[in-house]
């Protein structure tokens, strides 16, 4: 009987100030907060540094975000389904190294790009099969393949760097869409972002992803092909990471095995900062895009102010922790407020869990 009464009591208490509370809770939504923070950082940046708020710099900052943003789309789908892929940066590196090696070997770039992307898909497939067929946790699997794929990248290209890619292609990723200050990588991001948004928030697959992330067993009992969907997500993540590797390589005009080292952390920080629950089942793509932009602006600001890369890394790490910690803290506080007079400890059963 307890739950039922709690409901009547709960809704009852909420009844008089209902309007106020819903307004507060709307503002308290994480993705809205992040957007507000984004605007605040932008304004602070504009006030603090004259080089910040001009189209040239912003265009550069956005272009610099391209790979992170692209991979974050695929990562969002995975994390909503309560999985994660830590190997994306290594796939990016492998893709870059392979591109360099094949270009060095005299392959035409038109052949190299599809080959590299397919290799990325295979990398994702390996992750997906290990997770879905063998039932291994994706965190462990992709830490393993993080090392494995990066190692393969060094096998493919060694320590050298390959440059001198065709002008037409490097221009494409460093240039702007004609007549606008919008860099091509951003334009390249918009279409996938729209598609991802629709898939996540308006299709059956998206509904299934949230259900899988929140309660996988119930999703399976509802006839959702849990394993197949997860497998596809890993393949997509690998494919996108490899494509991001191509963009990265052309943008810097340099193929190296260590390209994109550590990018997975920025991606995951952006996704979690965007309000996606690391335990799955919660999040919005809008929040993630705000999270990506926030990370991008912060990095740009730190760079403009000549802050050392170590500090940049520290900032990324702190953001990651804060974004995981804050919602939990808020939940605990909310619970405290709801039950102010319960100093008793939880039962032993609960504690033992």
């Amino acid at each position, binding site marked *: 009987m307890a739950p039922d009464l709690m409901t009547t009591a*709960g809704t009852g208490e*909420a009844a008089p100030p209902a309007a106020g509370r819903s307004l507060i809770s709307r503002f308290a939504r994480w993705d809205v907060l992040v957007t507000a923070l984004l605007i605040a950082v932008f304004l602070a940046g504009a006030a603090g540094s004259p080089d910040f708020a001009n189209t040239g710099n912003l265009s550069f900052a956005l272009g610099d975000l391209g790979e992170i943003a692209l991979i974050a789309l695929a990562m969002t789908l995975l994390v909503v389904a309560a999985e994660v892929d830590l190997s994306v940066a290594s796939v990016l590196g492998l893709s870059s190294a392979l591109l360099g090696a094949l270009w060095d070997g005299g392959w035409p770039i038109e052949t190299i790009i599809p080959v590299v992307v397919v290799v990325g898909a295979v990398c994702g497939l390996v992750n997906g099969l290990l997770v879905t067929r063998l039932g291994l946790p994706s965190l462990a699997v992709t830490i393993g393949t993080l090392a494995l794929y990066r190692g393969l990248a060094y096998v493919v290209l060694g320590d050298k760097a390959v440059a001198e890619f065709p002008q037409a292609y490097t221009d494409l990723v460093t240039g702007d869409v004609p007549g606008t200050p919008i860099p091509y990588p951003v334009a390249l991001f918009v279409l996938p972002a729209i598609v991802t948004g629709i898939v996540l928030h308006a*299709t059956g697959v998206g509904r299934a992803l949230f259900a899988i992330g929140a309660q996988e067993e119930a999703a399976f009992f509802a*006839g959702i092909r849990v394993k197949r969907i997860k497998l596809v997500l890993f393949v997509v993540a690998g494919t996108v990471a490899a494509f991001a590797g191509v963009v990265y390589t052309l943008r810097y005009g340099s193929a190296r095995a260590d390209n994109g080292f550590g990018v997975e952390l920025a991606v995951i920080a952006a996704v979690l900062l965007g309000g996606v629950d690391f335990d799955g089942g919660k999040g919005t793509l809008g929040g993630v895009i705000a999270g990506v932009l926030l990370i991008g602006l912060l990095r740009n600001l730190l760079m403009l102010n000549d802050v050392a890369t170590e500090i940049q890394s520290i900032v990324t790490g702190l953001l990651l922790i804060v974004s995981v910690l804050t919602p939990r803290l808020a939940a605990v506080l909310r619970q405290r407020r709801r039950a102010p007079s319960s100093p008793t*400890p939880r039962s032993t059963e609960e504690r*033992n869990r």
Partner: protein
Amino acid sequence: MKDPGETGAPRGQASGTAPPVLALRGVSKSFGAVRALREVSLELFAGEAHALAGENGAGKSTLVKTLSGVHRPDEGEILLDGAPVEFGGPAAAQEAGVAVIYQEPTLFPDLSVAENIFMGRQPRAGFGRIDRRAMREESAALFKRLGVALDPGRPARGLSIADQQLVEIAKALSREARVLIMDEPTAALSGNEVARLFNVVKALREHGCAVLFISHRLDEIFELCQRVTTLRDGAWVASEHISGLTPDDLVRRMVGRDLDALYPKQETTPGEVALTVGRLTREGVFTDVSFEVRRGEIVALAGLVGAGRSEVARAVFGVDRWDAGSVEVGGRRLPAGSPTAAMAAGLALVPEDRRQQGLVMDLSIERNIGLTGLRSVRRGPVISRAAERDRARDWATRLQLKFTRLGDAVNVLSGGNQQKVVLAKWLATDPAVLIVDEPTRGIDIGTKAEVHRLLSELAGRGIAILMISSDLPEVLGMADRVLVMHEGRLTAEIPRERATEENVMSAATGRDAGAAA
């Protein structure tokens, strides 16, 4: 069943003359617009076990919280030994001798049993040291009074829920509680533990305590209590001696209608075969299980827990694989291990574990109902929010789901309403065969009757129903045929006319005497 006056009131109560230890008079309590209690009165006498009966949402929890000082009444008064009191908070109620034993107690796991009992009031030896020996001896004495064996020196961590309740009861006694409120104490206990708790309650009564006992299980109320107060929709219905009541009377007071509605079985003529299970085997779990379910038929799958009934259902629906045999729906053979294929063929499974398997607890009512229809509410590749919402609203209305908003998470609903969401989610797929696994477990009696009526109606509309149930009256009341499993095999098939508790139980326990049809 005996009167409080007849038995066990050695201290205090001279029958009929002493005022009640604790009483509520005309108490009302509202939360916003919801009136949780309306002019409720209740009297608890020393030495009696008094049952509080009512459906989910009848106001039992609010009443308990009012008695224990958590809520203050909006109107009416609380009387202690006949004199009005006001409990400023739970501490004041405790001070006055009112103790609540919750379903799942809250102990300090790393402290010993004795330390838990005397938390905050430890006996002192010289120089203000805590007198551990006195604490342990007094605890042992309390357990002896209750007639149970529990080591006061052991840590609370790892105690069973039943033992934790005993520690709470001992704690209450050590504070000289005179009123013990037990809020569904038996819900998480095994049969032996319930029997032990009942002995403890008898001991408490003999010591002159009043016990307010809350339980969904009618048999427990009739076994343990002398009087019963019934609430319905927050209002007082009756307070009376149990000896003059039958279980049907009590249900009528709780639900407000007759019990014969609990098993509203319609007569139907079975149609063509909808589900055929042929020699289905999953190694080590069940063997050679064969049966058919026809359209319009309710077939019960009875047996003891662990006989393999749920496992058969899971395999038929494709959640688990099978090793040999076949499953056909409407003449179409299903592949092993694919719930998606089973759904497409017209199978639906309302699983045993509603919270893990039936529902995604964090998602809304609407999304949960929508989960089985992701293909049917689409416009092109995109889901139509309107169609999704209509589908949910339609089924929520048909099943008389009680909810505030379709967007509310299902975890705020009561058990019975959650079960309705699971049913809605599957009925919305328009199944040919519906498998329900323990469809009424843990839900209150009014909703139970609704679920039964629904199943009967569905059968009347030509759906084939396979019902797994451990509730024998439910099996006998609802089934056209009863299949009985024992240790992974079907041991009997009994038609409705010949099914009795005896022959179903004997087939379920493997004493096959004359049960096989």
